[in-house]
């Protein structure tokens, strides 16, 4: 395993009143790793992800992301991560280029850096000729790919993807994963949630949360062997059903 850890989580606990949303989580994610974060609705995924992004404070625990403590240095954390979700995308009433300009500015990139990265990322998508188009005129699948490019434009150590491929057609979904592989090959850690179990197979390691706890954490291959399952869908059903009933 990689020596440098992009994410280190020790004894993470998050409570809302009496409700324990995250119950003593422990895990680490290596630099450049594609890490799948799965769980049923209400299992505590979003809560944990918010803490890792520096948006919410843990009740207790020691959590380092990109080498920074999420409680004491949340601003440093935010500068070194990218975030993209199905819901929060780009601005529809700005052009493609303006979206890059806007988010590049927020991440503190210089004008020339923004220009270079915009050209580089749009060329990779084959959208070099569309930079002046309004985002609202871009098809949904392409928007998701653009949103991903914007999320990694400041070359973050880690990119968090919250259900990035929801509702996307099966071909575009696969193209999206090609982008994820490329980013990981460049050394960006990818932390991804998904409801598509075939996508869980694309991850190097997968963590499954059930009722606020981590119930399993391993490679897809080992999870299938250990749970005598043909695929990740079966693994997921076995773990998530066991607890909820």
């Amino acid at each position, binding site marked *: 395993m990689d020596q440098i850890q992009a994410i280190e989580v020790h004894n993470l606990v998050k409570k809302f009143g009496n409700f324990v949303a995250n119950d003593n989580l422990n895990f680490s994610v290596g630099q450049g790793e594609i890490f799948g974060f799965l*769980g*049923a*609705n*209400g*299992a505590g995924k979003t809560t944990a992800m918010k803490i890792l992004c520096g948006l919410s404070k843990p009740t207790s625990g020691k959590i380092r992301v990109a080498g920074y403590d999420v409680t004491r240095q949340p601003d440093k954390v935010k500068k070194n991560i990218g975030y993209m979700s*199905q819901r929060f995308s780009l601005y529809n009433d700005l052009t493609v280029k303006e979206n890059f300009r806007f988010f590049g500015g927020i991440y503190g990139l210089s004008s020339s850096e923004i220009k270079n990265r915009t050209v580089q990322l749009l060329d990779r998508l084959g959208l070099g000729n569309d930079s002046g188009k309004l985002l609202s005129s871009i*098809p*949904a*699948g392409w928007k998701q790919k653009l949103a991903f490019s914007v999320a990694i434009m400041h070359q973050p150590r880690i990119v968090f993807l919250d*259900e990035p491929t*929801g*509702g*996307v*057609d*099966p*071909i*575009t979904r*696969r193209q999206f*994963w090609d982008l994820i*592989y490329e980013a990981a*090959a460049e050394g960006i850690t990818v932390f991804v949630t998904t*409801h*598509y*179990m*075939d996508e869980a*197979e*694309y991850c190097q390691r997968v963590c499954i949360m059930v009722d606020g706890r981590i119930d399993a954490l391993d490679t*897809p*291959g080992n999870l299938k062997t250990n749970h005598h399952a043909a*695929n*990740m*869908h079966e693994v*997921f*059903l076995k773990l*998530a*059903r066991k607890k*909820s009933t």
Partner: protein
Amino acid sequence: MKQIAVDIRDIRKSYTGIKALQGINIQINSGELFGFIGPDGAGKTSLFHILTSLVIPDSGSATVAGYDTIHDYREIRKIVGYMPGKFSLYQDLTVDENLKFFAGIFRTTIHEHFELYKDIFAQLEPFRKRKAGQLSGGMKQKLALSCALVHKPQLLFLDEPTTGVDAVSRTEFWEILQRIKYMGITVIVSTPYMDEAALCDRVALMNKGSIMAVNSPENIVRSFGKNLYAIKSEQMFPLPGLLATIEHTKAVYRSGEYIHYLNEKDDFDPVLIEIYLRACGHGMIQVHQIAPSIEDCFMVLMQQSKAQKAA
């Protein structure tokens, strides 16, 4: 004799330059569990709006239980239940108040058809005095479904009821839909999840405003042909690119831990794949023939319609 519950004839609809529906023709039988399967932008919601009489098509016509969606809209609204993709109940009314409200609109009571949704409502029982806005996602879904069933509709339309819902809850929701179907209600449901197609009696595969196929899931898979292979080696990242260079390759794409490969030639010999990959320096090669899934069919149909448009 099968009775037609929904008859859709050449429906077209555009919104400011976007062709949302490009000539849809489908007949749905009474008592059927029918699925519209397709990604965002396929036109599923536009079609549901037309069938539930909320939107008028640019051209074409449709009947629901024999009623025309334009002229007989009042009749249609009495006999259909509709659960929109976006949660549309009153957030500041309680569970009970929402149910009473919808019962009142349909001139019925909560009790008259309670048998129909009592299993679903049982799970809401502890929250009856809670405001709808404060329910969890799963509970909101169950309340919306109860409200759509309160007047015992002949047809139930559900627009993407399982989007963003985890695999376990999705399975449970489909079990509920099966039960509703066995109560004699025609269930028409849309979903972007290809694996849910197998749970329908018949499905329409939709993309970009067009229907690519209508059939039972078994027949759709059967019409795919036989030459689909699942392939694996110790170097998964470059594998699709390599396979794409094999002669007469029709499709190559990732699917879970394998790459799926389809060749145009009926007499294609899969041993070629292994020889070729070995020559390229790959080890731990696995090649086996597999039965296609609905998603495999969907992608090949997408490629075909793209190729037809280009030609």
